């Protein structure tokens, strides 16, 4: 249990409710914990949702439905058809449109009483403080580490709560990072994984319902911060496993040595988050050599010896069986490195050419001496260049 936090919406921003408000929110007004006063706080509240994707979709829909007066949406992306299995705020007819425009239309259709402010741009160190300053609460629905650290730091510097959620495959995490009342994201995760170490959702996949559950939990936490009261998710990390249907809760504490919210902060303004997350650095000095699908095909045809290792999982190979390949899933390459012949060039193959780079680096660090290459753009590259009649995935 966490200590209740009083409403963060200042009293001079509690507008009177109209007849329309009273009718629309009648079922919510019946709750003693919300009532007329709580609804006035919601009406005066301003919430910024960073990312209008899997987490942002339920966040925006439930907060709009509940009568949050102003909702800000930050996203620079456009709707893609592969988003629709989870980003339920967008529809098939929205494919190709900016996500913030599509989301705004859907919110207005749901509740025209809500004021929607859109930012069709990436959140950056240049604009984050100016944008976030205008809002009472920030809900983090982003999909990458640089933006997560940026949102955290901007919220700590401005004294705002950061309602956090993240998802991968079947598992989600949620918490409220609010340095005034508990730990921040950096207290828990001092640094991000090195680039490429952890597969992205684009490679690892995600159950569409999962961000629905986690984003809805985030919306619930936002409502409590706005209305005040309840047991907020500050100082607690909620873990959810959709496949096992299991919730767990872990206790989090502020880190006195935290570089931004600790006793002696070393971060006092926003930094370059791409650099912090290693995306611009050259952690791995030796680049990984690539081979194109066309060149690999030429070697096959010319009978030049090459060992091809397919790193994909069994269910991925069901889409497309890579020719002349030995199968070693990424998670087993170090354990099974003795199955490779260092005297022969090795080409690693995955779906889009990310895990293959990781495999080369992992094996290099594990001491494998042979020559290794990454198939550029993975199976996708092979289909595009060599085998266009294969089924696209």
């Amino acid at each position, binding site marked *: 249990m966490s200590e209740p936090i009083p409403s963060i919406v200042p009293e001079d921003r509690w507008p009177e409710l109209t007849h329309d408000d009273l009718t629309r929110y009648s079922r919510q007004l019946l709750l003693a914990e919300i009532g007329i006063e709580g609804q006035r706080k919601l009406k005066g509240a301003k919430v910024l949702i960073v990312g209008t994707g899997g987490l942002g979709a339920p966040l925006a829909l439930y907060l709009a439905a509940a009568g949050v007066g102003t909702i800000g949406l930050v996203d620079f992306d456009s709707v893609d058809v592969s988003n629709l299995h989870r980003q339920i705020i967008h529809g098939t007819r929205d494919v190709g449109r900016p996500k913030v425009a599509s989301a705004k239309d859907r919110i207005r259709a749901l509740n025209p009483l809500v004021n929607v402010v859109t930012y069709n741009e990436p959140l950056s160190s240049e604009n984050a403080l100016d944008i976030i300053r205008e809002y009472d609460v920030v809900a983090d629905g982003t999909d990458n580490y640089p933006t997560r650290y940026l949102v955290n730091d901007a919220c700590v510097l401005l004294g705002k709560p950061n309602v956090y959620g993240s998802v*991968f495959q079947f598992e989600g995490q949620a918490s409220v990072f609010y340095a005034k009342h508990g730990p921040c994201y950096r207290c828990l995760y001092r640094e*991000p994984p090195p680039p490429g170490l952890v597969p992205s959702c684009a490679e690892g996949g995600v159950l569409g319902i999962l961000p629905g559950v986690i984003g809805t939990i985030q919306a619930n936490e936002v409502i409590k911060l706005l209305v005040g009261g309840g047991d907020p998710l500050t100082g607690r990390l909620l873990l959810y496993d959709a496949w096992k249907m299991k919730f767990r809760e872990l206790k989090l504490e502020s880190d006195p040595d935290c570089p931004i919210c600790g006793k002696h902060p070393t971060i006092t303004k926003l930094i370059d988050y791409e650099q912090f997350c290693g995306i611009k650095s050259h952690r791995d000095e030796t680049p990984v050599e690539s081979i194109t699908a066309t060149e690999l095909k030429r070697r096959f045809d010319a009978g030049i010896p090459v060992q091809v290792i397919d790193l994909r999982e069994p269910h991925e190979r069901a889409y497309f069986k890579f020719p002349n390949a030995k199968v070693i899933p990424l*998670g087993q390459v170090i354990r099974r490195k003795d199955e490779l012949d260092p005297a022969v060039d090795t080409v690693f193959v995955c779906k889009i050419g990310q895990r293959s780079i990781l495999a080369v680096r992992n094996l290099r660090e*594990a001491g494998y001496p042979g020559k290794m290459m990454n198939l550029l753009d993975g199976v996708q590259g092979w289909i595009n260049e060599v085998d266009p009649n294969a089924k696209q995935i």
Partner: protein
Amino acid sequence: MSVSVLIPSALRAFVDRKSEIEAEGATVGEALAHVAAQYPDLKHQIYEDDAKLRGFVNVFVDGTNIKKLNGLETPVAAGATVMIVPAIAGGY
């Protein structure tokens, strides 16, 4: 001493898709080393070097972060649950 090490989705590819592994050890470090010895691919994911976990990996013993206890030296009782909780970033 036998403890349960819980493996999150993000790391299951490195442990033959297991979600829970029984491990032997008197401390968190020994239990994790026991698992890492069986699965060197997992070891590479979570360890910076032989003695240090990576900064995006937290380990909780029976619900408490080992940073608040004695780190990898934290003793574990038989039947304890050691949970690996890495950062995940997906939201889209």
